[in-house]
């Protein structure tokens, strides 16, 4: 019961804030709403039993990324200025399309998905398993992607410095 209520709260939070994030006039507010969405997502991870993912989500997203965002916003925006939106017709078109997509996908989910699964009680994942899987080279083990990601991260670091440094 508690789980359901928590879920409901989280779901409502995510839905409301994500909509607010994209419709808000002030960019700083959007970022704040985004932060709530990310936190809500982290909550969902927790609810699903992925504790590690919850931690990563909080640390990387809500921590790292959001800080970047806020800095960027503060650097590029004059306070109090409204964010420009697209032309009205485009916004309407975008809205209609999004709603259509939402309806269509919702329809599929509502009518089709519930017949496909059996719920297994969420069990906590052991952090050792995660570590082993991440470092292994066997089937269903992810050393190679891990290395790729690390190289990618390195590249990003270098790239970001290169791009952003003063000439």
């Amino acid at each position: 019961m508690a789980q359901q209520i928590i879920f409901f709260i989280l779901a409502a939070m995510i839905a409301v804030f994500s909509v607010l994030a994209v419709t808000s006039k002030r960019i700083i507010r959007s970022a704040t709403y985004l932060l709530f969405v990310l936190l809500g997502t982290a909550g969902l991870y927790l609810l699903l039993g992925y504790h590690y993912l919850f931690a990563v989500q909080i640390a990387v997203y809500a921590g790292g990324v959001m800080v970047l965002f806020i800095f960027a916003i503060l650097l590029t925006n004059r306070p109090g200025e409204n964010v420009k939106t697209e032309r009205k017709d485009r916004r309407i078109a975008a809205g209609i399309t999004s709603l259509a997509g939402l309806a269509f996908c919702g329809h599929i989910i509502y009518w089709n998905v519930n017949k496909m699964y059996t719920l297994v009680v969420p069990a906590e994942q052991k952090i050792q398993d995660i570590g082993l899987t991440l470092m292994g080279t066997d089937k269903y083990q992810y050393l190679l992607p891990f290395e790729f990601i690390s190289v990618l991260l390195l590249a990003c670091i270098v790239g970001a410095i290169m791009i952003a440094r003063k000439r």
Partner: protein
Amino acid sequence: MGDLFINFFSNPVPMEAYLGVSLIMFFAGVYGFLSRKSLLMILVSIELMLNAADINFVVFNRYLYPGQMEGFFFTLFAIAIAACETAVAIAIIINIYRNLTSVEVGELDEMKE
């Protein structure tokens, strides 16, 4: 409608509920992506969509293949990549702002320094 609520609160959270949440998040992201001009807002929207996808991965992993960890890892990597992407994107945005004092997509049709 009443049935739905009773079912919802008496049974474990169904998968479609998670999917519904991610769906709303995703299309909010889509709407934001299409309707905003600021690069930062577009980035925010992208984050929303990525998160929605992440949720889906995790949910599918949990509900359909509970014994495995693919979805989990996919999400993990996606978060890492999203972080990279955000970092680079923000670097670019700041750089653009420095040159053009604007971060509006409509005005960025010149590739010059």
